[in-house]
């Protein structure tokens, strides 16, 4: 029953159009816009607008603010856009990464995070990631992805086809219970490490960069072709993540 809402079917094009218009109006008017203002701006009947707003809040595209009458865009909207804008990295942040690269004998990379969306923005030029795109699209198989999934309420809503996770290598966790166990470990220790789940023989360590409010804004990843997660670099990576936090928040 979950995941399917029969309230709006493909046979109600006007309802879908109106729902998208409501979403767009909240984005245009900005966080804090009220239901009445949305109805007035769109010329929709109030009852219809309230129903559509509740529907979009139920699906978590919109969020009702704590005063209960203002609306804002939810993190799920980031998944629609699929990009983190702006994807520019300040020079000061690149310098922090360069310092870390000088200290560790492993690949050092930076990925920006917005909600459930990951964008790899700085790859180690000497020891590059084999495939940044795989990291961005297979969150269940990478250390960076594990950190991102550990942040959300339910990873099943974030990954594509949670019941048919792709097995990139024999070590990739594909069963829901395995992913749950992995994320529980990540939440407990505050960092993620995997070996051979994305590419055979490649291990990776991921450390969160958190903003002032504790939100995950970026991930520092340290990759190693020696088969295991390079946990010996954990302290160095954590120190760099601390330096990056004020630069990326």
């Amino acid at each position: 029953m979950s995941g399917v809402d029969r309230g709006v079917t493909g046979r109600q094009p006007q309802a879908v159009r109106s729902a998208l218009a409501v979403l767009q109006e909240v984005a245009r008017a900005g966080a804090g816009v009220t239901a009445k203002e949305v109805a007035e701006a769109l010329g929709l009947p109030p009852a219809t607008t309230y129903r559509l707003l509740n529907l979009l809040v139920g699906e978590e595209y919109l969020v009702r603010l704590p005063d209960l009458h203002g609306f804002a865009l939810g993190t799920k909207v980031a998944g629609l856009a699929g990009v983190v804008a702006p994807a520019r990295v300040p020079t000061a942040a690149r310098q922090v990464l360069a310092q870390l690269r000088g200290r560790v004998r492993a690949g050092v990379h930076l990925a920006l995070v917005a909600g459930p969306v990951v964008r790899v923005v700085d790859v180690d030029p000497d020891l590059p990631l084999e495939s940044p795109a795989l990291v961005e699209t297979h969150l269940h198989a990478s250390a960076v992805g594990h950190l991102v999934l550990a942040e959300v309420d339910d990873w099943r809503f974030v990954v594509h086809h949670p019941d048919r996770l792709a097995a990139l290598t024999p070590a990739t966790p594909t069963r829901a219970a395995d992913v749950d166990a992995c994320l529980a470990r990540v939440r407990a220790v505050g960092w993620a490490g995997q070996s051979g789940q994305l590419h055979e023989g490649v291990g990776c360590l991921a450390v969160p960069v958190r903003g002032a409010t504790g939100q995950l804004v970026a991930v520092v990843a340290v990759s190693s072709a020696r088969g295991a997660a390079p946990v010996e670099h954990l302290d160095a990576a954590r120190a760099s993540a601390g330096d990056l936090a004020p630069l990326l928040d």
Partner: protein
Amino acid sequence: MRIDQLPVRSPVAGLRRRGLSMVEVLAQSVSALAPSAAVVAVPPFVMVQAGAATLPVLVVGTALVVLVGWCLTAFARRMAAVGGVYSYTAKGLGPGPALLAGWALVVGYAGIAVSALVGAVAYLVSFTGLDPPGWAVAVVTLAVGLLATLVTVRGIRLSARVALALEVVSVGVVVAVLVVLLAAHRGGTGTGAAVVDGPVTAGGVATGLVLAVAAFMGFESAATLGVEARRPLVAVPRAVFWTPVVAGVLFVAAGVAQVVLLRAAPVEVLTGDVPMAQLADADGLGVVSRLLDAGIALSFFACVTGSINALARVLFSMAREGVLPASLGRTHRRFATPAVALAWVLPVLVAVPAVALGTGARTREVLAGSLTVSALGYVLAYVLAAAAMPVFLHRIGELTRPTLVGGTLAGGLSAAVLVVAVAGASWTGSGVMVLVFVLAWLPGPVLWWVLRRRAPAVLARVGVYDQATAGSLLPGQGVRR
């Protein structure tokens, strides 16, 4: 509140977030309602009161509960609460009435848990066919109560699944038994017809209506799973609305069947403990009546777990607001359930029935007494929540004409039912139960009075729910003006 001031942590953090599927949320409402026990036990009581008007009374009672359920969906679509109707009332009528409704709800859930526990034990005893002494019944009560509490501490998921499985089995048994009895029915009229087609009086109809509404108590309890449901703003309103609709269809259908069956039966059967079981015995279907006993015992057990789940979450909510001691708001480290609140609920839950039954009170008396107390609590909570709905929608600027009319109607009619219930309980000699209710409910108004003088800041926090946190908003979006 500005969006850059949103908290990082939800005020009701600690429960296992976003885990329960739609079906498991539904299971909570269904188990607290205990449909099979309700559809077998309630219609004969209504017949005794309403006579020939029984079926219309059952339909009107169902309609009123569905209307109240519809009112609650207006809240459930907008906020994911742990305190259920208590938190809803707070958002409409403010903290004071919320405490009145909240404590009425606590009394309601506790009362229904006690009566379901007594019912489970009584039908278990009837199923075994033994006649144990009072102390043995008390020990069994203790054991069943302990088992129910362990199931609920272990996790809402487990208890929801157990409860739903038990309810499906017991509803299946009840439907099968009714079908078998109707098939074996030979028509004709017995002395029961004098009651079934009896005279219709205003007082009788009103009391019958109260009983019909009481059959649905607990249908709103999915509203306490706001944090734990996977998509709370979708799943909770559906459960709160569709549970009374579907249970109502079953209820009216079972009412029709029992009207047909009991019209042909002797009047002693109709006024007996379980008319359906006695009918089955009379038809030589002894095994059917045993099956019915087992089914109803299971349904009652599920109702015990459902009620204490909801009760513990209301207390948890109050503790998180500071209304009750903070320790009640602690959750189990491994199971993420409000374990401390559950542990406090247990002694009250088992002590009342164990002492009552152990000292030789009749099962039927304990059952009727606790049901009366809990019915008063529930209906008072429904009145306040239904009245709060239009006020709440007006406050957030989303009031429409249907919600205004529906909320006023539901509040007014429920208030009428409450008045009749109080008056009716006093007429029928259970006036002492009204007194018990008032005493049990007194902490609500007292808390309001004390907090208003001593800690107005705590009162202002009443109505916590799983609100938006900094992490749930799209970063970097524009802010209005």
